């Protein structure tokens, strides 16, 4: 019968009207972000507030967008000094591959999602600048690698040696 479908439709619309809203009034109300959510990359610090990065460059190589850049100098005693560790968040796709690749658990994906900036130049910034890199011997590799993927064919210490030797 013509019109029956339309009446059914109205009934369904009415039923949905009574179901209540599912949206929230952002920014007054915020939804909870799941534990694994991946947003901007941030460096991690140890208990004394020193960055955990050893300047091994694994993250730089893992990034599909080539937006991480780490410049460091090696002193005579082989210790490294990070001049700058720059990150172009405007091109970051928050894939998490850099974090998974880091053998020392020195970076993580934060939950900060309000990343808009007024000036495009602010979309590239330094994660770390002018700090000493942790010597690999002292850095303890993460107890459980972030990714199962990071089950390296070489141990972190070896890896870092190998990478240091390409410099």
């Amino acid at each position, binding site marked *: 019968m013509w019109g029956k479908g339309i009446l059914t*439709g109205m009934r*369904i619309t009415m039923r949905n009207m009574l179901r209540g809203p599912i949206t929230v009034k952002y920014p007054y109300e915020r939804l909870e972000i*799941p*534990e694994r959510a991946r947003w901007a990359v941030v460096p991690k610090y140890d208990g004394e507030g020193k960055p955990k990065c050893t300047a091994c460059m694994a993250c730089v190589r893992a990034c599909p967008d080539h937006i991480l850049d780490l410049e460091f100098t090696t002193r005579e005693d082989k210790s490294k000094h990070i001049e700058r560790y720059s990150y172009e968040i405007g091109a970051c796709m928050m894939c*998490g591959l850099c974090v998974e690749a880091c053998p020392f658990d020195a970076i993580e994906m934060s939950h900060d999602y309000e990343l808009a900036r007024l000036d495009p130049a602010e979309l590239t910034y330094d994660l770390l600048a002018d700090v000493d890199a942790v010597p690999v011997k002292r850095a303890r590799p993460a107890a459980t690698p972030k990714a199962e993927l990071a089950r390296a*064919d*070489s141990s972190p210490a070896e890896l870092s040696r190998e990478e240091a030797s390409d410099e």
Partner: protein
Amino acid sequence: MTDPRDTVLTHALQAEGTFDPGRAPAGIKRIPSGVDGLATEHLVVNIGPQHPSTHGVLRLVAELDGEEVMNVEVAVGYLHRGIEKLGEHRRYHQLGTLMDRGDYVSGIHGELAAALAAEQLLEVEVPPRGQWLRSLMSEVNRIASHLVWFGTFGLDCGAMGQFLYAMREREALLDVLESVTGQRMMFNYVRPGGVLDDITPDAEQKLRTFLRTIDSYLDEHHALLGGNEIFQKRVRGVGVIDRETGLAFGLTGANLRGSGVPYDVRRDKPYAAYTELDFDVPLGATGDAWDRYLVRMEEMRQAARMCRQCIEGLPEGDVMAKVPRVLRPPAGETYACVESPRGELGVHLVADGSDTPYRFHYRAPSLFAMQVLEEILPGHLLADAIMLIGSVDIVLGEIDR
């Protein structure tokens, strides 16, 4: 009586200073006048690329006779990002990030196809829990993708309400996907060797809640849109793709099954855990837009059914095989395909022994579905043409790549 157009033209020429009253204006092709001085001609209309009903950036050059489409040409390339070429400069486990941006409505399937191809080259065996999680997440993503199609297909037919309800249901699924994979759309979850991580208790609980209600919601959605006489009038018998046309154009997925060809990659070339799952492959009878609608609606139910089986039957164990950090498959080539919500999504990889593919190509089901539009649109009204673009469910991200 003077033709009003002459006056306008005269003014224009006078303004230019080239008006010569003794001569007919040159270079102006006048339409042959009919009885009352008016006649019709075919009009070429450019639909898109920036048009909301073209599902992205599809451009149609349609030749219209009044409201009727006489001829149509599809033009693509407005979303071209060179994904295949970029893939030649990405390591194997980075390919997933590119595939996510191909068919962005169902990223898991793209990632899975790339991962399967890399695994075939590497001869890696994925642990059972990884396989089942792949199937589970594929099906979750399939429902989410079909819900987008359902909502927007209604919009193309002039209905509005179901879009919001479909998005509401999809939201629950995106929450599940976000909790498991970390992202709502660009998941980067399926990796060569398995999946990134296990399902979270929170996601499992959300998914169970969703699966309890989805069937009744789907009934409701179907009653709202499919039960509406106006909608039925618009889609029944319109845009028929017969068996032969479907096969000749290389259609796959719901578009081909709507025409009655029983081809489903999940059943015919099983991957992940599909050999152990019990599901039906719905088929259409005539291949019109209504059949494609019914097939997709039924696929959502079947996907929900598979999700239930996956949650219940999830085996214990690892989710990821032991694979090296940098994958260097031996030289060779391979093709792996999955059943994405749009059809057979395949990845062809040629490896040369280095850590990046020598050639990375992918077969996008939407590309074939889009080409069939040139065949089926002529003879339909313009409004039906818009509906038919919706009915073949294309995603421009994977067409242009």
